[in-house]
């Protein structure tokens, strides 16, 4: 298989799948489990929240996730300051016993765009504390370079606003980011359908992270498989080397031997 030995390497850890998926917004746990399975993802994101003390009957997310099979990537979703994000990461490490964190520090509730100043501040502190930091960031090559310089294990620029499904809005910035940093570039947010994921991979991105694009589909399990195939197809196409675009036609069949 041409896919063999094409590993995604993050902080020295190897992954066969280049698709990372979230665990939010599913109708129920069985649907979530089936979708994750269909996606082929090995890294799955989770959020950190207060335990509901008054109602302890609810099932726990971790009762449904095989921790031998999946690497958990706790996020700092909902954090608007570096301090809150740092605090959340410390709790996540204690709860999950892993150093991997998806660091996001948001700028406002309407756009959910990153606050890059706070993001950089939090990344510096967390890296110093030994965390493996995967930051959700704007598709800004300069910010991505600064995150890499701080020691982030990857950069995760958005394709479009979180949950918007608008797809890859600025492929040129992603190409500049790919040209600027050496760490893996993972498109995080904005993917709405399979072709969006394929486009990200065809650009040369190293992976794609999504949640709403799968969980919000009418059939999340089918969409998870579609994303699995799209990420693999896009990666294969990138590695295969596409033909240059030409304005005019170029016949596929030989001109010699025509009957007339």
């Amino acid at each position, binding site marked *: 298989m041409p896919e063999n030995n094409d590993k995604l390497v993050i902080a020295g850890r190897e992954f066969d799948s280049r698709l990372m998926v979230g*665990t939010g917004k599913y109708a129920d746990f069985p649907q979530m489990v089936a979708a994750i399975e269909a996606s082929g993802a090995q890294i799955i994101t*989770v*959020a950190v929240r207060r*335990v509901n003390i008054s109602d302890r009957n609810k099932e726990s*997310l971790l009762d449904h996730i095989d921790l031998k099979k999946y690497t958990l990537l706790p996020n700092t979703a909902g954090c608007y300051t570096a301090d809150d994000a740092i605090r959340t990461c*410390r709790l996540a490490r204690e709860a999950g016993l892993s150093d991997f964190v998806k660091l996001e520090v948001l700028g406002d509730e309407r756009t959910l765009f990153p606050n890059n100043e706070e993001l950089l501040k939090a990344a510096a502190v967390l890296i110093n504390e030994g965390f493996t930091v995967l930051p959700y960031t704007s598709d800004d090559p300069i910010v991505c370079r600064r995150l890499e310089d701080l020691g982030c294990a990857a950069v995760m620029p958005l394709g479009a606003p979180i949950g918007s499904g608008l797809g890859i809005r600025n492929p040129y910035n992603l190409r500049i980011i790919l040209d600027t940093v050496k760490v893996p570039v993972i498109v995080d947010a904005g993917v709405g359908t399979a072709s969006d994921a394929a486009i990200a991979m065809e650009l040369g991105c190293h992976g794609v*992270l999504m*949640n*709403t694009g799968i969980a919000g589909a009418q059939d999340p399990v089918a969409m998870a498989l579609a994303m699995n195939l799209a990420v693999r197809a896009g990666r294969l196409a990138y590695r295969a080397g596409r033909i240059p675009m030409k304005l005019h036609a170029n016949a596929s069949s030989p001109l010699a031997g025509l009957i007339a």
Partner: protein
Amino acid sequence: MNITINGEAASIEPLSVQDYLIQLGIDPRRVAVELNREILPKGAYPGTALKEGDSLEIVHFVGGG
């Protein structure tokens, strides 16, 4: 005695963090605990007695992106 747990006031008997978690029906392996804004390592749950005025945060993983 009175403590604050996840932002809400609670009145409890003196006991350890470990015993309090069990009393609440919480599996200590599945959560992380902050005591007065400092992470409390899991190994310290049994040996840490709650005191009047303590503030506890108990968090776990939920679905998210």
